[in-house]
């Protein structure tokens, strides 16, 4: 056992895979000697050297292009896009190239690569450095989308992502980087596409992702005090999407509440809601309620940002609306 932060877990997960497989290389801005702006790659440059840990110019398209071309030809690159908001300057590589190439080439090209990125708000960085853009990725056929909430999952899902033969977008949550947990020593390898039931309760199913998971748990604890027993599910990945775990739970509870950090329109909760509304509508005993950030850019001021992002109180309110 070791007490690790979420950010240390990133470096440990990467190191575990770089140790195992010499085709794994790391590409990004300030990730080398500097250890990354979130200090999530500290020590990797010292350990694996400049041949495997490569600093780049500020050229996100070039970073993702390099990762893609390397993955086509035998490597397993891990690219960093520093803040997930910056995917907007290189979205072409994700949406048009990396995601589509296997399909367009009728399976000739395989792209085992990981793009990791600091995602999400709550750190007062303002509208251009705080977005939750895992939904942008979910809308693109051909990529997998992972967003761990726990320190152990960071390692396990990083390993699973690196070993996965498909391109994976790996969203690290900025507000969780300092979170600490005890994790087992030795190799940790997770599995993509398996949601985690964090606590069980028979009254309502609350589904959350990344930094919303601890908030959902907090809400569930407060609800328990009020006699309402919630199941909390951590989705962990959006693609593959573990609908079965959610549907099973809804079959038992009859109520579904999704908790999303993203702005309202077209968050992943919409997809989940539409699936349940199509396939499991007769299991429902009340409306599916989505708790999200309102459909606005994120404000910088702490007082406003705290109002924007879902809080345990707003989750409780959502649960009450579903149960009403």
């Amino acid at each position, binding site marked *: 056992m070791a007490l690790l932060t979420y950010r240390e877990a990133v470096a440990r997960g990467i190191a575990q895979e770089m140790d195992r497989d010499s085709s794994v*290389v790391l590409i990004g801005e300030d990730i080398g000697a500097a250890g990354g702006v979130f200090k999530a790659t500290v020590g990797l440059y010292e350990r694996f050297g400049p*041949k495997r840990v*490569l600093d*780049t*110019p500020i*050229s*996100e*398209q*070039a970073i*993702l*292009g*390099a*990762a*893609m*071309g*390397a*993955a*086509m*030809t*035998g*490597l397993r*690159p891990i690219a960093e896009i520093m803040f997930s908001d910056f995917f907007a300057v290189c979205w*072409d*590589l994700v949406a*048009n*190239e990396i995601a589509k*190439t*296997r*399909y*367009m*080439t*009728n*399976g*000739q*090209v*395989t792209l*085992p690569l990981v793009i990791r990125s600091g995602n999400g708000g709550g750190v007062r960085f303002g509208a251009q450095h705080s977005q939750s853009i895992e939904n942008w990725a979910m809308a693109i*056929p*051909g990529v*997998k989308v992972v967003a761990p909430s726990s320190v152990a999952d960071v390692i396990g899902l990083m390993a699973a992502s690196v070993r996965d*033969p*498909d391109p994976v977008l790996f969203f690290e949550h900025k507000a969780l980087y300092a979170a600490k947990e005890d994790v087992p020593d030795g190799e940790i390898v997770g599995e993509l*596409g398996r949601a985690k039931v964090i606590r069980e309760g028979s009254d309502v199913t609350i589904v959350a992702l990344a930094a919303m998971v601890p908030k959902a748990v907090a809400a569930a604890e407060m609800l328990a005090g009020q006699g309402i027993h919630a199941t909390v599910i951590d989705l962990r990945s959006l*693609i*593959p*999407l*573990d*609908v*079965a775990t959610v549907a099973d739970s809804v079959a038992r509870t009859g109520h579904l509440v999704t908790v999303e950090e993203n702005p309202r329109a077209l968050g992943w909760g919409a997809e989940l809601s539409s*699936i349940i509304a199509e396939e499991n509508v007769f299991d429902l005993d009340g409306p599916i309620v989505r708790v999200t950030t309102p459909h606005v850019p994120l404000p910088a001021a702490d007082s406003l940002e705290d109002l924007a992002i879902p809080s345990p109180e707003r989750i409780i309110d959502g649960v009450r609306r579903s149960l009403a």
Partner: protein
Amino acid sequence: MTVNEYQKVAPSVVTAYVSSQEGRPDTATRVALYRSMVRLRYLEKRAHDLFLQGLVKGTSHLGLGQEAIAAAFGTAMRKGDYTFATYRGHNHALARGVSMTSVMGELMGRSCGLMAGKGGSMHLTSVEHGMMGSYAIVGAHLTIANGAAFSSKYRGTGEVTVCFFGDGTTNIGAFHEAVNLAAVWQLPVVFVCENNLYMEYTSIFDVTPVENPAADRAAAYGLESIVVDGNDADAMYATAVTALDNARSGRGPSLIEAKTYRHGGHSRADPGKYRPDEELQAWLARDPVITYRARLVEAGVGVQELDLIEEAALKEVDRATEESRNSPPPDPSLLMKDVFADGGATWRS
């Protein structure tokens, strides 16, 4: 010189770029270059005919007139080297050894196509031949080519990556990022700008502040400025050999600007009427295939040998046409195949 003046005199200006006496390929190589060019030419002409017959669906971008560039690199490259091309990539696929049937089949959306119709004419890919893809978003593939070159360098396996693109591509951000990173990382990559003087329907001179859209940018990346006559297979071949050798020997990337011209419009729907007739005529007179034939004959290559090359290419095209016509459309099951490496498209459980 104003834009129009330049365009008018372009052919003679271009001739002045040539320095093909040195490094001129030997006769066997020159015959191979001719053979390659003829194959490309015949396939593209047939593709045009088939489009007129409604058999090539969607779009397609012919490389008629630009054959010398693809042929020169295709001939100079080694097996295992990587090619990255654009939507105007039929020439480049063929020049790396991809069969006519699989190219034509793809244009026609048939199951004999390189990607069984899933990609289409703009995305010809044959990993087996080092043809690592044709890309239809301007600029992106320059960055991807870097990745392949980086991989070769990392693995120490000695392949060179060659990346073809057009003049218009030099104005997009990805061009800048890609050439820059290649220079910083000293990658074994050769960037080849086929300057055919036009983007889609707009003259490159109208929207570019320098005369040589690629070569005049080379210094911005610490690279040498290289301009070559893209209609002269000998000059192209010599240039290719040098650049490939530099890359393979660890001397880093090159950025080459080859002056050329497309004989037809930008894509199948375009008659290319925006081009002054005298300009078109002047360039047609510099047809890379016809002029090269004359040059070979002058150099003592037998006319019969060249005739045979042409006949063989024609037969190959006929056969490819036949095979493609007879090939069924792709199996409907392909729709849901190969989104992911497990062969399927499942995104939820």
